[in-house]
């Protein structure tokens, strides 16, 4: 048996073959097919046009209200309505309604729907987030979604794998977001195009799940097909508390072939910021100069977890948001929202002058709850700073982790957390 990477092993195991190598085409059986209110409605007529009558397995389909919820206008209300009707018609139990939902990439792991070794396709580009649990997960569009519903399988080209090794010990206020921004700035926004990114090393071994999700979430921003981390004790602890079904553990063979191996010594990494309009244009937060900002957004599938809000609360507690600045905080799911309240973080944010919104993708895609006006600047903990992404095309988006976001909200300009504390 040839040596394989973790990604290759999962693809082989789901395709009924003993081994695969990069470049091979496989038809892989799907463990989970995920979509949201913004991608599902388009797929329904396509599914029907394919001549499909039933979905392959209602238990393996997940439908999540997250992008434009609660409905921002009539058109988005209609999209959710179509998804709701589809769920009813096909008896899809994993349909997540407003109030019991949240951003898919936090919700699915939370609900125990993702486990190591799974093969998951999702109609959202950040589906690669689930790789943090040792699953193969990749984004697809609406026609591929319909095909996956109908067939329970889809074609995939086995990607080459780039191994990323982080060495050293992370300094205070530096986290998963800084690691992935540093990596994207080094390899560029297409540095991993069509390839798999396998994150490893002693830094990853010590990293909590929240940071691992952040890292895998942004694998697609380097062009990757998937991001993945070998399951370890931290993964298994997370899964054990949530997963009801059985799963298989895969690990990369010692002799597996990588297209590249990148090593980063991160003991001296500092809090980082990505400058508009690409996530690869990265600078140290303390070196960007005086950049006044109009809004700070703390949330999204990248950094909307309770761990992110705990970091922000440490900085914002007993402090005030800068005059003239809007701080918007959006917990990724209802569970995260509940913890914000229970842990007393919500009151710190409210006292500081921040606005807490209900779980939604909202401002990250410039759809609602904090759309940017012309010429405005936003610092966001989300994953994309493309032109017009969060509102008017003349607005500017800076990306960072929660610590820089909180410090910047206080100073009204992009700031390193050490400037505040």
């Amino acid at each position, binding site marked *: 048996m040839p040596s394989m990477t973790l990604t290759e092993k999962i693809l082989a195991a789901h395709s009924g073959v003993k081994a695969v190598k990069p470049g091979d*085409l496989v038809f892989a059986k799907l463990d989970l097919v995920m979509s949201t209110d*913004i*991608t599902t*409605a*388009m797929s329904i007529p*396509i599914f029907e*046009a*394919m*001549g*499909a009558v039933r979905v392959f397995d209602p238990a393996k389909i997940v439908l999540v209200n997250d992008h*434009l919820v609660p409905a921002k*206008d009539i*058109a*988005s209300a*209609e*999209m959710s309505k179509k998804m709701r009707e589809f769920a009813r018609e096909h008896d899809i139990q994993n349909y997540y309604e407003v109030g019991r939902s949240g951003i898919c990439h936090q919700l699915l792991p939370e609900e125990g729907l993702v486990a190591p070794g799974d093969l998951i396709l999702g*109609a*959202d*580009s950040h*589906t690669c987030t689930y790789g943090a649990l040792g699953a193969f997960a990749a*984004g*697809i*569009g*609406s*026609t*591929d979604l*319909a*095909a996956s519903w*109908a*067939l329970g399988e889809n*074609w995939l*080209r086995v990607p080459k794998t780039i191994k990323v090794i982080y060495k050293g010990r992370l300094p205070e206020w530096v986290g998963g977001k800084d690691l992935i921004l540093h990596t994207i700035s080094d390899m560029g*926004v*297409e540095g991993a*195009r*069509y390839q798999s990114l396998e994150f490893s090393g002693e830094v990853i071994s010590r990293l909590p799940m929240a940071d691992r999700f952040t890292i895998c979430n942004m694998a697609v921003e380097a*062009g990757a*097909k998937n991001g993945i981390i070998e399951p370890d004790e931290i993964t298994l602890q997370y899964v054990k508390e949530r997963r009801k079904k059985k799963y298989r553990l895969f690990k990369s063979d010692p002799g597996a072939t990588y297209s590249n191996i990148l090593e980063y010594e991160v003991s001296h990494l500092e809090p980082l910021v990505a400058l508009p309009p*690409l996530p690869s244009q990265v600078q140290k937060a303390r070196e960007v100069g005086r950049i006044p900002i109009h809004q700070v957004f703390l949330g999204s599938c990248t950094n909307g977890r309770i761990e992110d809000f705990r970091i922000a609360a440490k900085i914002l507690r007993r402090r005030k948001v800068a005059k003239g600045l809007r701080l918007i905080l959006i917990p990724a799911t209802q569970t995260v929202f509940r913890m914000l309240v229970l842990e007393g973080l919500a009151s710190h944010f409210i006292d500081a002058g921040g606005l807490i919104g209900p779980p939604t993708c909202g401002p990250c*895609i*410039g*759809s609602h709850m904090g759309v940017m006006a012309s010429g405005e600047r936003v610092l966001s903990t989300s994953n*994309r700073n*493309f*032109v*017009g*992404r969060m509102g008017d*095309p003349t607005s500017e988006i800076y990306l960072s982790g929660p610590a820089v976001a909180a410090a910047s909200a206080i100073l009204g300009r992009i700031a390193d957390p050490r400037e505040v504390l």
Partner: protein
Amino acid sequence: MGEKIRGHAITYGDNINTDVIIPARYCTHFDIGYLGEHCMEDLDRDFLKKRRPGDILVVGRNFGCGSSRENAPLAIKGAGMSCIVAKSFARIFYRNAINTGLLIYECEELVEITRDGDLIEVDPETGLLSNLKRSKSFASAHFPEVVREIIALGGMIPFVRKRLGEKR
């Protein structure tokens, strides 16, 4: 695979992402005519004025990076483009274009020599791409086998129809 296509080039650079191809604010619609009327508006206000039916987008690396929105290839079709030639495509856009029947070709050399307005000829049968103004022809990258089958059948819908038929 059809007859040769001729169109004038409209050129853009690297990393043209789906947020500028069609902003999320229009993604509550799937009608290709509507999407076409907003195609590229955050990138190039003149795109809709200068494009003519059958024009060909000639673009740099990593075209279509960003979100999985299938509204992006639909918008390009809706704007009347006959095909896209890129140095490379982002993977989800690549699949979405093939699946929705938008013709796409990877060819670094053609993109290098092409300027706005050059007359381009595409032979879908052979994958040969020609810049007629500069009298140069290049072979485009080969499609993987399954992609050739999807294109030959006319998109992902007939492909799945066929596979479902085989399963029954």
